């Protein structure tokens, strides 16, 4: 009876209450930060004595915030493009290839997801210092693509595993070249996987803190580095304003994802 929602009695009430509490716990910081960004207290008193937009004005008056956001967007977009492209090619080999050591190679390509980022961060920092790539956009994109690759491979490979390969073979038998069949039959069929891969790898770069802290230079810093620096200095409400905009962006991304998924599935 423990897995019958309609026949659980008091246990259901207890579990529902607990679930509600946990959902509230998960929501608390997100809602709190948005409310705080409109509060008038510089010392983050809550509930705030009054409401204001001045932290947003301060945020937009300081060009370094916008600059950091644009840098992040640029690096994350390039990372997502590269990771999806490389991940797509790799997924075909990992899912369909019949060669020795396939599982080992799959494991190797997914390792950046498991290894603590701080280890990779100091390794790539030292490596790029030697190559002269430290603090450059290319350096950032390469390092972030390494970290994003597993997040691109997993959804694409999963989608590809669920795709019936005989449809692609049928197209080839009907006269399409293997490449044509992949581009016109297979890719459209696994687009949800490709789309998820793009979102996950974008977020992997956009949110990345640790590598960015090591790689950043005074002239090139991403948004997380900018927030990190401000957090270490003080808990200014301007950070709450910047954070709220990021929450808004997350919500927008979630809505777009949900809408696209619905369209893909019907």
């Amino acid at each position, binding site marked *: 009876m423990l897995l019958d929602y309609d026949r659980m009695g008091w246990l259901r009430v207890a579990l529902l209450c607990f679930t509600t509490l946990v959902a509230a716990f998960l929501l608390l*910081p997100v809602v709190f930060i948005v409310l705080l960004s409109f509060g008038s207290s510089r010392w983050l008193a809550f509930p705030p004595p009054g409401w204001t937009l001045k932290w947003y004005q301060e945020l937009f008056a300081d060009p370094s915030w916008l600059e950091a956001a644009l840098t992040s967007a640029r690096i994350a977009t390039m990372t997502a493009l590269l990771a999806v492209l490389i991940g797509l090619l*790799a997924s075909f080999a990992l899912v*369909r290839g019949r060669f020795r050591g396939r599982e080992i190679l799959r494991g190797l390509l997914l390792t950046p997801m498991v*290894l*603590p980022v701080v280890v990779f961060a100091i*390794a790539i920092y030292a490596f790029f210092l030697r190559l002269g790539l430290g603090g450059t956009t290319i350096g950032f994109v390469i390092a972030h693509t390494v970290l994003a690759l597993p997040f691109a491979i997993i959804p694409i490979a999963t989608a590809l595993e669920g795709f019936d390969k005989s449809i692609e073979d049928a197209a*080839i038998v009907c006269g399409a070249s293997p490449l044509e069949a992949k581009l016109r039959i297979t890719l459209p069929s696994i687009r949800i996987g490709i789309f998820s891969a793009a979102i996950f790898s974008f*977020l992997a770069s956009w949110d990345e803190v640790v590598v960015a802290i090591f790689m950043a230079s005074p002239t090139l810093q991403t948004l997380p580095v900018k927030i990190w620096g401000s957090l270490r200095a003080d808990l200014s409400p301007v950070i709450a304003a910047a954070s709220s905009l990021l929450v808004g962006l997350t919500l927008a991304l979630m809505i777009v994802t949900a809408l696209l998924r619905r369209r893909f599935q019907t």
Partner: protein
Amino acid sequence: MSVETQRSIATMRMPGGLGSLLPALILIGLFFVVPVLALLLRSVTEPAPGLQNYSALLGDGTYARVFFNTFLVAAVVTIVTVLVAFPVAWMLAIMPPALASIVFGVIILSMWTNLLTRTYAWMVLLQRTGVINRALMASGIIDQPLPLINNLTGVTIGMVYIMLPFMILPLVGTLRAIDPMTLRAAALCGASPFQAFRRILLPLSLPGIAAGGLMVFVMSLGYFVTPALLGGTSNMMLAEMIAQMIQSLLNWGLGSAAAFILLVVTMALYALQLRLVGARRATGGA
């Protein structure tokens, strides 16, 4: 389709298959494997060739404390996360879909919100004059503000918050795969709800709990951001110590040796997880 055609399609795919793996292998080989190996080399050559960095790390009480702290925090975070996640995953697995999708929405929103944003919120919420201390004092539960930040309490709260989605989401899958009939059968045979839970539901969901728990433990071991911001100086964790050795002390030998110890422990646990659940399931949760 004739056997001939099948065979020709198969052979056509083969060389292309391996070749398309090349960009990924070059990227990971050149910019992941080589730098990490170079780091390992540094740990046994700087300042002089030998294992003195490792003996310094493993023989010193200060460093031993950091290792102990790291394992303690990771263990506590894992246990709390499992205990909180299980009932939620249980409900999510059987709830009406409309209700469940609201909870899933909240989980995704929290998971996708910028990591620093979430940590910043906890820094403000948990500080001495923060909302939580004020609410507790106003309600008369405590007279003095509780020290909730710059200590292990702060780190645990912040880490559990971040790890919960990683535990809940795979567990829902495990619980959904359990056939409700097995529990109905248990009830028909006279098992009390508690017996049914202990003898059937819990054992059947144990693989999911073990896999998720191990993942949370491994992630917590190497976590940098949250412990650095919510923890105190007296109970530093390993990742923060490594970053400090490199960034502030410029001690590359010691820093890379500590990084390598973290790498070995993490990889050993990861291998254990692969053994437990198989390669696909272990990494399929993202």
